[in-house]
């Protein structure tokens, strides 16, 4: 039983390392400008002051929707990756056409300006 946990442990270690590395690199390379807003409590980009009943901008929903869609893409990617060898080239083609469909959708959304923040 024990050996089968090694990959997971390795994966966890890799993730921690990657996260740390990213933080470290951005800390080292990023420019520093101290502003008032930077020191406020982090609230996902929304000003933390004012009434709590204020509505979220609709854009967040749009991003959330896109996130859900691409998140779900993984649901198919993982089983495919697991059986990658058995599926072979046909599987590869199928998967790429799947990703291409999503990509075309994303392209359309982008060209229609749905990703513009303002």
């Amino acid at each position, binding site marked *: 039983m024990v050996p089968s946990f090694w990959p997971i442990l390795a994966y966890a270690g890799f993730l921690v390392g990657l996260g740390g590395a990213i933080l470290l690199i951005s800390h080292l390379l990023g420019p520093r400008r101290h502003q008032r807003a930077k020191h406020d409590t982090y609230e996902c980009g929304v000003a933390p002051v004012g009434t709590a009943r204020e509505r979220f901008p609709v854009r967040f929903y749009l991003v959330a929707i896109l996130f859900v869609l691409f998140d779900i893409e993984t649901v198919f990617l993982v089983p495919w990756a697991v059986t990658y060898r058995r599926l072979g080239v046909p599987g590869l083609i199928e998967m790429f056409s799947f990703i291409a469909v999503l990509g075309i959708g994303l*392209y*359309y959304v982008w060209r*229609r300006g749905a990703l513009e923040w303002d």
Partner: protein
Amino acid sequence: MPDIGSAELRVLLPVLAPLLGALAVLLTDPYLDKGRPKLPLVYIALGSLMAAWAALGFLWGDRVVAWSGALAADRFGLYLGFAIATAAGLTVLSSAGYARKMGVDCGEYYSLLLLATAGMLLLAMANDLLMVFLGIETMSIAVYCLAGITRERPRSVEAAMKYFLLGAFATGFLLYGIALIYGATGEVRLERIAHHAANRPLLLAGLGFLLVGFGFKVGAVPFHMWAPDAYEGAPAAVTGFMAAGVKAAGFAAFLRVLLTAFGGEAAAAAWAPALWMLAALSMIVGTLSALAQTNLKRMLAWSSVAHTGYALVGVVGGGGVAGNGSAAVLFYVLTYSVMTLGPFLVIALLSRAGEEFEQIDDLAGLARRRPVAAAALSLFLLSLAGIPPTAGFMGKLFVFRAAIDSGWLGLGVIGILATLVSVYYYLRPIVLMYMREPRAEFNASEPTDWASHFAIGVAALALLLLGVLPSDAIAASLESVRGLW
């Protein structure tokens, strides 16, 4: 992993064609001028639908099963596939002008239309419950969006919301039904489910939930309540497509599941009384509610509920694969999809910028101002009422005959009574069009929308042809049912 052989691809062609069309629309749209009519999108959509048509015709013949039995290209699915592709094509034709009037002349409109069509065709050819589920959802999700595509019209959005909420709710039941059937048999392939004894409570419970899902899609009472609201709120061209395509695809899958997975005598004896009830309720509630309507689209929605009842009469009196009833249902749904699409095409034609032409009273004197539209609308309504020599008469004749032949006399009588009452509300618009002075202003200066006229003409011609010379279509429907095994 099976090889993707030629059979696999061939069977997939009718679904692939509109799917690729949808992608092409998405890729093309950003390069088109914003202010000009987006005709290239119409061409792409029409082209891909014609390709789907050709693929259906190419596959017409013996049963080909592919994708490990998940999809079946047989006459049964292709028969209504033709109806679906035709309905989509006519909708696109009519949309060329309509979408611009309603301010939705954009890529997503056409691509959603094509995606819904792909879902419908998938549903019509689905041979296992997974494909049924995927087909239904592909179709439905696209149609939810279409119903609400005119975002500026509150009623359109409300219709989409109601349709969506209830649709998702019904999907839950459908899925649960599938889960229970899978649990009872370990199978999702339709013909394999049939090998299991039908008397197990788990299987029957699954069937019950399945009926809820299908009943919702085809709009049978008491699962119909979304229909009037969604039909009224959705833009006319979409409503027509919804009424014709969703119903045709829904019935195709419904009937296929009932005939293959639950086609045994014991199973049929179990579901027939339940469907009897649904059919009777649909006919009665649909007809009665339609009587009191003042909105043409809403009236047609209730009429579609009643027509679901008529078609279910044929399902009940189907007599299994050997009987005429199931074939009568196929023929009925085929004719119904044409004759219900027609009025919506006319409504779409008469609509003006951002404003639907939907009150029955607005029809007053239409025969003077728009004689062609009025004549076509009259023909569609007469056909819906089942008056010879239109296709509606033929369809009703076969369905009721099948029911009475197999001993369901009561259902036949309810159907005939409902038909008689229904004449009242189908006739009212005709009376208004031909026998009243015009009330509403008509915009005569608009350029003639030839594409729409052509679509309406095709629908009218098809109705007359199916009414006068139904033999071939009926023969094909019989072959379709016989070729199911």
